Structure formats: C-alpha cells, structure tokens
C-alpha cells in the first residue's frame, strides 16, 4: 500500500467533555484517500464521539479539524455533508414513517426540470443502489417495522448514495448477517479503490483484519496507538484496548446439564415461523443461528409472551403453559434480553438503578412505596458485577455508551433471577472486553443451572458458547446440532436452507 501524501481529513489535539465525562482527550487522527482506517476501543472509549465530531453533530472543546488541508469548523451535519463527509451512525437515524427510498434521499430528492420531486427516478436510483448491495428490500416499504438489520442496510445505502469523499461507518456490521457483511466489504473495498477515505468503527477483530489498512486504538478518550493494521496481532490489539491480557474470549465452562425445563412443540405463528420444536435443559446453552430475518427473534417474542402463537405448545417443567404476557413469562421463570436495546430494553430518561429494577419494581416495594435502599444495593451490586462504566447508579442511561447500556439491560434481567434466559444478540455492539465478560457471565449462569437460549448472528460466538445449535431458515428449523457436530460449514449450510439432512 502506497502512502498518499496529503490527509483529506485531519483531527488535531481534539478534546471533548460532556458534563463531567471527558469523552476525548487530545486525540489526533488523519484520514487519507484510498485508505481504510479502523477505529477500535472498548465501550465508552470515545469512538462515536469522534465520529460525531466529523459528522458535525458535536463541536470539539479544543483542537483543530482540517478538511482538505484547510482548517474548518464543522458546525452542522448539513455542512459536514456538503464537505463530502458521509456518516453511518451507530444507532440508525431513520424516518420510520417514510419508505426506504425516501429515507435514502431525504433532503436530496432528485428533481425534474420543474423542480418537482422526481419520484420515479428516486425509486430507480434506490433500487439500483440496493441491488448493488445485493439487498432484497422493497424500496416502497416503510422503515417502521423493518428489523434492525434492514434498517442498518438502509443507513448504508444512504451513506453510499452521498457519493462522499470521506465515508465514516460506526459499527455498520453490528446487525448484519455474514452475507451482507461480505457485500458491504466488497463495496467498501471498491470505494477504497476509487480513493475514498474510510473510517471504520468495529468491535469485530476479524473484520478489521480483513479490511483495515491502518488502525487506531482508543482507550478512555485517549488515542493509544495508530499503526498499519498488518503490524498488530489480535492479541496486541486486545491488550491495547483493554489495557490488560484477556484470558479467553469464549470461556465456555463445563455445566451440569439437567432436566428438561422448556419444551416447545410445533410452535407456529402464521407468516412468521412454522413448526418450531426444541427442548432446553437446565444448565444448557442452546444457540440460535440463522441469517437475518430467519425468525429467531419472533420465536423469542412468542416465548416471552409479547406475540401470540397460532399453533403449538409450550411446556415448562413438563407442564403445558399459556404465556399471554411478558409478566406471565416472568412468572414462569423466563427472562428476555431484547435485540434492540434503545427501543425495547431501556427507559432512556431513567437512572441505571431504576432501569435495572424495572421488572421487579413491585417486589422491591414495601407498603410505603419503592424501597430505595434495597433498590440502591441491588443496582450497585450488579453494576459492579458487570463492571458498568458510569458516574454512579443514579446516572441516566441515555448518557452511557452503547456497550454499557447493553450491560444495564443484561443486569436488569439477571436481577429477576430467571431459570430460562433468552439472550437476543447480547453482545451486539459490545466491545471485546465487555463481550468476554458477558460470555463469562453466560457460562457462569449456565453452570448455576440456568437454561439459556443464545440468539446470535455471530457464528463464532454461537459455535463457541453453545451446547447445541438450532438453525433457522425462513421461519423453519433447518437443523439442530450437538456441540461436537456443529461447525461453521454445517450451520451455514442449514442457515441458507440447503436441505435439512442433519435432522
């Protein structure tokens, strides 16, 4: 790789403070045309803050931003866009009421010669764009109700449509299936070829290895190191990120597998999934694998009483049960960590403590009302256990970084002391240190006899953590594999629906 002479974007000695949190401290970063620059770091390291500075959303307290060699103040997203910077933010920022095409072209609708919005051209453009991403998504579909993954794809399409000289992607792959990730990478590489400068934030080291030319590692708002990606090994990256050696990413321990606790027979929800049957035992981790949209979340929602099944039976401890609401599910010992933490997991205006105790707020109440002392001690306890990085349990969760927010959701459900725990993408958007911790916690829970369903789109995670792996494809179960027979190839085979010979 030849080093271009001039950086197209340059951040020099940038600092940024939120209230008492020092999010960035004297950070330098330079982006070069035709170079993919990866940005990694633990949750709350300041990656998204950096991205938002370039996107014109936040302004630095001190420091200089240079675009094309001229010092610039990025004071609005519009201006940033105007300078050729396209940003895919960590959380989708879409218009749920509008359709896919309008989301892509909002504010930049193609116009005909009378200045009217040219709808036909817009739809064609977006269809072409999606086709180039190999995404099968109706351009007329309203974004509301699209799974997170599809929303992420719309975000990507939006950024690509800008035809920018600087493309910034904040964890674009967190919600994507391997196939879509691959497609995105192909396009990213094409863009690199054409001289676009790319900043890429991710927690997945294998992606970085595949994609990145250069790597910047951040910790606690400080840049630790910038180096050509080829010069750092995974172990070194992790050490720089976490500041210590990480023993194991997938610490799957031995657990005593016990009685059947949950049995699902021929569960069907019309139009979503059909004839799903499986058993789950105490101490067992059952992985749910499949491509995005395979219907795993839908099964979990039915199990947790959010949606109704049309047919089929659910047995808990060999007793048929009717789960009509999440409350009922909780009574049966179920807990569900949803995949979309912002929408489903957290009350943003609540404190960490209030979020954690929300499902059990009734239990921590006395005659006089909510027992604040008990609440405080419970929350403090779990906050420490999960190593949540905050100013205290009275901090509002909206001020936490994505990863720490996810830990709060996890804590919230562990507090209910469930016997069956459903985890839907529990490590999505979580940094590698936290991820290892979550994995460790999962293992420990299983060792304590908890039955766990682990829904994950990350194949290595499912394979490493599960005792058995259930694979779904378009609403059908296409395979259930024992730990020793589950390998990447077999699971992918089933996930893409190519015969179910392993049944």
């Amino acid at each position, binding site marked *: 790789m030849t080093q271009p002479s001039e950086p197209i974007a340059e951040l020099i000695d940038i600092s940024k*403070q939120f209230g008492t949190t020092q999010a960035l401290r004297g950070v330098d970063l330079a982006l070069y045309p035709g170079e993919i620059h990866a940005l990694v770091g633990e949750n709350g390291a300041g990656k998204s803050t950096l991205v938002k500075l370039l996107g014109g959303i936040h302004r630095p307290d001190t420091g200089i931003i240079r675009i094309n060699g001229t010092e610039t103040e990025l004071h609005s997203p519009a201006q940033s866009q105007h300078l050729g910077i396209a940003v895919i933010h960590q959380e989708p920022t879409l218009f749920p009421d509008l359709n896919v095409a309008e989301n892509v072209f909002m504010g930049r609708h193609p116009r005909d010669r009378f200045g009217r919005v040219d709808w036909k051209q817009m739809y064609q453009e977006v269809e072409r764009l999606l086709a180039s991403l190999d995404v099968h998504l109706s351009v007329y579909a309203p974004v509301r109700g699209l799974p997170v993954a599809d929303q992420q794809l719309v975000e990507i399409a939006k950024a690509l449509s800008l035809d920018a000289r600087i493309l910034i992607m904040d964890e674009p792959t967190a919600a994507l299936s391997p196939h879509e990730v691959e497609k995105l990478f192909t396009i990213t590489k094409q863009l690199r070829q054409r001289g676009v400068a790319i900043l890429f934030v991710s927690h997945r080291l294998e992606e970085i290895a595949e994609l990145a030319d250069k790597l910047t590692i951040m910790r606690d708002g400080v840049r630790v190191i910038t180096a050509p990606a080829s010069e750092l090994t995974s172990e070194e990256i992790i050490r720089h990120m976490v500041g210590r050696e990480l023993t194991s990413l997938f610490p799957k321990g031995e657990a005593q597998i016990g009685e059947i606790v949950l049995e699902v027979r021929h569960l069907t929800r019309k139009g979503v999934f059909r004839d799903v049957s499986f058993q789950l035992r105490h101490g067992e981790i059952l992985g749910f694998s499949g491509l995005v949209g395979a219907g795993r979340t839908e099964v979990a929602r039915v199990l947790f009483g959010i949606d109704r099944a049309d047919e089929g039976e659910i047995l808990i401890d060999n007793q048929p049960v009717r789960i009509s*609401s999440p409350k009922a599910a909780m009574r049966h010992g179920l807990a569900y960590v949803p995949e979309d933490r912002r929408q489903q997991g*957290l009350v943003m*205006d609540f404190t960490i403590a209030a979020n954690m105790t*929300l499902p059990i707020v009734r239990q921590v109440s006395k005659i006089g009302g909510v027992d604040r002392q008990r609440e405080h001690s419970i929350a403090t306890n779990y906050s420490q256990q999960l190593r949540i990085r905050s100013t205290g349990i009275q901090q509002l969760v909206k001020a936490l970084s994505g990863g720490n927010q996810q830990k709060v959701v996890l804590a919230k459900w562990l507090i209910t002391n469930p016997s069956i725990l459903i985890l839907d993408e529990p490590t999505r958007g979580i940094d590698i240190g936290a991820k290892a911790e979550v994995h460790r916690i999962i293992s420990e829970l299983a060792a304590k006899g908890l039955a766990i369903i682990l829904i994950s789109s990350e194949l290595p995670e499912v394979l490493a953590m599960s005792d058995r792996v259930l694979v779904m494809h378009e609403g059908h179960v296409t395979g259930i594999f024992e730990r020793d027979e589950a390998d990447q190839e077999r699971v992918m085979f089933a996930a893409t629906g190519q015969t179910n010979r392993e049944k």
Partner: protein
Amino acid sequence: MIKERAKALVNSWDAFLVVLLLLAIVYGSFRSPYFLTAFNFSALTRDLMEKAIMALPMTLIIIAGEIDLSVASVLGLTSVLLGVLWNAGIPLWLCIVIALLVGAIAGLLNGLLVTRLGLPSLVVTLGTLALYRGLAYVIIGDQAVSSFPADFTSFGFGSVPGTLIPWPFVVFVILALLFLALLHRSWVGRQIYAIGNNQEAARFAGIHVARIKLLLFVLSGLLAALAGIVFTSRFASARPDNALGFELDVVTIVLLGGVNIFGGRGTLIGVILSLFIIGALRNALGLTNISGDIQNIVVGILLIFSVLGPNVVQRIREALARRQMVAGGSPKKV
C-alpha cells in the same frame, strides 16, 4: 443523599413554581386589600376544587403519554345524572354511587378504546368529549334540576364547622395525598413513568401497559364524576352545560405544572403548585375587576413564559459559558 436531593430541588421546576406562587401572592396582596384574607383564600380554593380533582388523574395520564379530553364532559354527564336520578326519587347516596359508577364506566370506555383498539387517546377522548356531553343533553333535555337537599348543597358551599376550610378542599387534600403516594412512592408510579418514557421497553419489562393505562382512564372518569358531584353540590344545579370547556383549563394547569405533554416527565407537586398559581392570579385580577379575557391573556403568557423563560436563561448561560471558557458544557439541547 439528602444534600443531593436538596440541590436537585433548588434547581427543579417545582422550586421555580414555588417562587412563582409567592410572586402571585405578593402581587395579589399589593393589588387588592381583600386578597390576603382568610375568607378570600377560602373562596379562591373552593373555586378551584373541581379542576383540582380532575387534574390529579390527568397528571398521571399525561405522564403515561396519553391524554383525557373528556373529563369536563364526564363531569357534566354525571352532574345531570345525579339531578335526574334525584328527581326520580332515588335516595341521594344511591344517586351518588350511580354517578360515580357511570363516571368510571365512561373512563373505562375511553380506556378500552385506547388500549384494546390502539386508537390515539387524543382522538378517542375528543370523540367522547362530544359523546358524553351529548348524553348529558339527551338525559336532561331542556330541564335543569336544582331541588337538591340542603345537606347536599351545603357540602359544596359549606366549610368545615368553625373554620373557613371548604369541604371540597378536604376531599382534594385526601385525594392529593393518595395520588402523591401513588405516583412518587409506589411501583405503579414508577411503571407509569416508564410507560410514558418508552412504552415498548416497559412492555418488555413485564409491565402491563394496557392494564395500567386502563386503570388511569377509569380513575380519571371516576374522579371526573366526583368533581361532578362537588360541582353539582356547589351550584345546587344539574345542567348539561356544567363545566363546559374545563378540559382546557385542566390541561393548562397540568402543563404549567411542568408535566411533559409527550409523557414521561413531571411531578404532581408541580401540578398542585400550578393550580394555586393560576387560582391566586385569577383571583387577584378578579378582585380588581379585571375581566376574564385579560385574565386569560395573563394565564396564556404565563404558560408560555414559564417554559420560555428558563429556556432563554439556559441558552444565555450556555452561550456565556462557551465564550468564556473553551472547555464548556455540552451544547446539546434538551
């Protein structure tokens, strides 16, 4: 802990409202020699009680992210019902029970339409605003009942013996304490805030969102009926147009109290303060014969400035901070 809370209070909306209330009282006593009298406070308070009673559940409903515009119509409907039943020779206590029941049913209908059919509460209660008021007209036609027994009417117009404390105020105080406990101490209150903030997350946390909302609407209907009884008693008159348009006043009181119209934020203390701010102001203006329209202008401006003022101060402070030291606070607006 305590220090923290005290600090939070000083910065809070409620503190602002306390200051506002004090200002209103000072203003009133300057405006009119009749303002700072026990008799006047008694009259001022009595005048507010129907709205005050309705404002309690309205606060909870708005915090839960919904709204009930039908309260004044429920008041009218139950008032008329009370009159018609009483005229038909039914014992008064039974009339009252039936009126309360009908109020609760009216609230239940609102709640069912909102929770079961998923219709926006604004639309539903806009419909029942007309429906319930219309039913009042259907029931009583061009009649009006005023032949209530003296015992009953003296409840609305009388005071606790030996004092100037109006009976309805006693009712309100008891209710207010109950609601304060419910919203700010109990788990139900916590769940109400959660629903208002993020309904889906609340559902995923095992909260019976629909059930709680239903409860709130029933409560609102029930208390509107109670307000109807107080109203009927105070004016000794059951008419279909009783309390016409009160819903707007109740909503105004709740909003001035700092409750976020989009749900999730606000306190009952604020609402109670705002109730008395508006009451004291109107009374002070009224004592100097300033007409209702001008009073409305004052209330309108107060409503706007109560939010605008702090915003402007905040922005000026931020701008100054940014200019003075480069490492200022977050420019992100709330």
